[in-house]
């Protein structure tokens, strides 16, 4: 028996499974169909809805700590009702302020923009767009969601601990995070944070292995790598980044747990706490930073790449034009993915890193500007002279480009180790990363949800609510984060509870209040989106045509509400790349249409 037989047989098995599953569709119980489902489309919806719940919690946390930052002298009695002893008399407890900031970061970075974003769209789009009945291993795929779910449960429970959840910042630097005596948030809350992240890493590993394997092994006939939509390319590189960087975080998590409970000294050395000299010696807290940021920086691109892929696809479809520079887009994905592993120490310029070493990281960091700029110009040139349809998805995709430019340009400032001496840990950094990967990737996610909602649920979302959602969110995003650049340039540090003690920051009191008000409005607008989302699942306008956007890709060749197995008959064969828009006088040519005799090559 050789390998070819096995792989051949596997594809046959998948074929059969698809047919069988479709025929016996009605026999599935509620539990196997909606709870422990192995259908990638259901799993994707599970990721999406879990992500939305987390986004709601994480967003609410930011509103609460923005209240403190905007109104440091006021009390809000309702906070005491909500948070109990964490807000005595309606004044946010400083310890809990740190817990909120930490949890806001952890939740948004990992649970919303990693699991919620690539979990949703990789699961949904990979089999549909490469032409497969399901993921390579539907079972591991299901397991991946349930590991994420259990990670969520552990993290959620930690919010209700008497000593509070982890509160040493989302980067959990030791020694603060390693010593329970250092602060209440470093007690059980930290252990649960580490346990939750352990489960989360397993979830990401299972998911990533599945995504990579499905894209490489399960493409339909004719779907060569260069005929893949850019969404698939972006999700492919995202999965590669996850599979190679999360294991290093696992090492850091394991070593930190040992330091906390087994008396080892990996990250601890020469510490006096509360007058007591600790026996630990020889460890290095900077080692932890290296391990953490070896994940942490690729993580930024794990968040950004899927949004870029979605944006590329949505912009091309709604400009009715081929994406500009397809191969350059693929190449820049590759360049970003490769460079992202070589720049982690730019988070550590002022941590005691050798300045000579820092210069290399400056160079590599600034190099990322090249592929990023290639992408931006390609999006702009795709839009250029297109017949643009301003659908809600398209608006959010254009919004992504705008935010990515605005936030990306300040990355060039921050990538310089000398400028970083002044700017590190100020609101300038907060503004930079929120624009370039936080809000921008949320925009990518919104673009994806609006664009593929008809495929996911067979209904449209309400357009009026969508437009209100878009305009308030983009205006709000700039109103919140643009002023933070000025505060940061003036040296205002991030993570502080109260700035009123500093004469030099008093002038920002009004600005902080403004930011907080806008944050509140933007948060309320997201509730509108969530209402729109859930309302439209049940009551939205029904989709009546299988290809409502006039797109070329394979997911629109399935029935309006595809069952498990996606295609009723044979999986379609692919003959062309996915961007034949406005070609030879035709609006679009689906990938499934053979290339004609007299047709121009793209």
């Amino acid at each position, binding site marked *: 028996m050789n390998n070819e037989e096995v792989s051949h047989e596997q594809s046959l098995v998948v074929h059969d499974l698809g047919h069988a599953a479709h025929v016996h569709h009605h026999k599935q119980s509620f539990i196997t169909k909606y709870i422990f489902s192995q259908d990638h489309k259901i799993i994707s919806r599970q990721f999406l809805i879990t992500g939305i719940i987390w986004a709601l919690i994480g967003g609410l946390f930011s509103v609460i700590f923005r209240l403190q930052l905007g109104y440091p002298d006021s009390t809000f009695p309702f906070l005491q009702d909500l948070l109990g002893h964490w807000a005595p008399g309606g004044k946010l407890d400083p310890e809990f302020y740190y817990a909120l900031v930490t949890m806001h970061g952890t939740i948004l970075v990992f649970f919303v923009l990693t699991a919620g974003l690539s979990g949703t769209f990789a699961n949904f789009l990979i089999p549909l767009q490469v032409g497969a009945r399901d993921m390579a291993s539907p079972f591991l795929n299901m397991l991946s969601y349930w590991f994420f779910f259990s990670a969520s449960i552990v993290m959620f429970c930690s919010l209700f601990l008497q000593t509070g959840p982890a509160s040493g910042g989302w980067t959990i630097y030791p020694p603060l995070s390693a010593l329970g005596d250092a602060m209440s948030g470093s007690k059980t809350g930290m252990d649960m944070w580490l346990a939750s992240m352990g489960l989360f890493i397993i979830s990401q590993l299972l998911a990533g292995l599945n995504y990579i394997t499905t894209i490489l092994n*399960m493409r339909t006939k*004719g779907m060569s790598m260069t005929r893949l939509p850019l969404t698939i390319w972006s999700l492919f590189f995202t999965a590669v980044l996850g599979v190679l*960087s999360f*294991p290093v975080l696992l*090492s850091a998590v394991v070593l930190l747990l040992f330091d906390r409970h087994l*008396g080892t000294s990996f990250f601890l050395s020469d510490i006096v706490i509360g007058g007591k000299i600790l026996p630990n010696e020889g460890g290095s807290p900077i080692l932890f930073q290296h391990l953490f940021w070896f994940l942490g920086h690729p993580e930024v691109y794990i968040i950004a790449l899927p949004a870029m892929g979605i944006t590329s696809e949505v912009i091309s479809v709604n400009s009715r034009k081929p994406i500009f520079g397809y191969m350059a887009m693929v190449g820049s994905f590759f360049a970003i993915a490769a460079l992202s592993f070589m720049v982690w120490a730019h988070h550590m310029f002022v941590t005691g890193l050798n300045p000579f070493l820092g210069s290399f990281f400056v160079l590599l960091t600034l190099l990322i500007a090249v592929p990023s700029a290639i992408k931006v110009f390609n999006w702009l040139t795709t839009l250029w002279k297109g017949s643009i349809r301003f659908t809600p998805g398209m608006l959010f995709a254009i919004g992504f480009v705008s935010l990515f430019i605005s936030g990306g340009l300040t990355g060039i400032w921050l990538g310089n180790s000398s400028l970083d001496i002044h700017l590190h840990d100020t609101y300038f950094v907060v503004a930079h990363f929120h624009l370039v990967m936080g809000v921008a990737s949320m925009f990518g996610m919104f673009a994806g949800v609006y664009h593929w909602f008809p495929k996911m649920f067979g209904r449209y979302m309400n357009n009026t609510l969508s437009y209100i959602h878009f305009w308030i969110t983009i205006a709000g995003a700039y109103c919140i984060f643009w002023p933070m650049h000025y505060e940061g340039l003036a040296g205002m540090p991030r993570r502080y509870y109260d700035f009123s003690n500093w004469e030099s920051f008093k002038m920002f009191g009004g600005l902080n209040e403004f930011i907080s008000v806008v944050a509140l409005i933007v948060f309320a607008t997201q509730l509108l989106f969530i209402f729109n989302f859930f309302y439209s699942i049940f009551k939205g306008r029904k989709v009546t045509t299988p290809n409502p956007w006039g797109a070329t890709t394979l997911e629109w060749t399935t029935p309006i509400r595809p069952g498990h197995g996606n295609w009723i008959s044979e999986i379609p064969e692919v003959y062309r790349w996915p961007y034949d828009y406005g070609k030879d006088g035709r609006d679009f040519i689906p990938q499934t249409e053979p290339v004609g005799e007299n047709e121009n090559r793209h």
Partner: protein
Amino acid sequence: METALARTKTHLWGGGRSPFNVSYGKLMMWYFLMSDSFTFGAFLISYGSIRFSLNYWVNHNYVFNEFPFTEANLPLAFVSLMTFILIFSSVTMVLAVHEGHKMNKKGVEKWLALTILGGLCFLGSQAWEWTGLITGHHKVLVDGAIQYWGTTVSHNPWGPKVLFHGEMVATPGPVAFGGYFFGITGFHGFHVFTGVIINSIMLTKTRLGHFEKRGHYEMIEKAGLYWHFVDLVWVFVFLCFYLI
């Protein structure tokens, strides 16, 4: 010739088949191993960076010189035996995979059982070695008085020796040794343990005739990939802790 080559190439990546001619399961195993090697890599690089930032490390010829049932000084003899056992279990694994290709159920059972035995021997040896280290009594000069220490994550009796009442006595060594030694060999041992469990499941499935019914023994191959990886990691761990 050239065009023929080009055609096969586009065909390979043209969709509708696996470009590497492997099943999805094997591909996943390879990528998993790549991921896992990053975890081990992170551990070993951390160990290296801390070790070389310190002025003093331990002399492994003194630390690892015990052998069961003898008081003789046999530096690195026991760990060599452990390594031999583990590598030999890789050989038996290869033979099990080979018998699987020939669809020889009895052969697979035999060699898989021996592989499991090898893994268990390794784990037992590791337990013996750890016990010896932790419960050992080594003379250490601490704050001007003699104490007797074992090697743990917080105690290292293998520091530089000083003259004390006319006798050379060790002082406390870097605690990082215990932390990294037990941390990394423990993490590796955990991998061996999971490997033994996986192999036991494979053995059970073989005995029940699952693979015979399926027509191929590919699961054994995948388990074998994992097992060889665990052995390969040991070679690096062995190198970093016992030889360098």
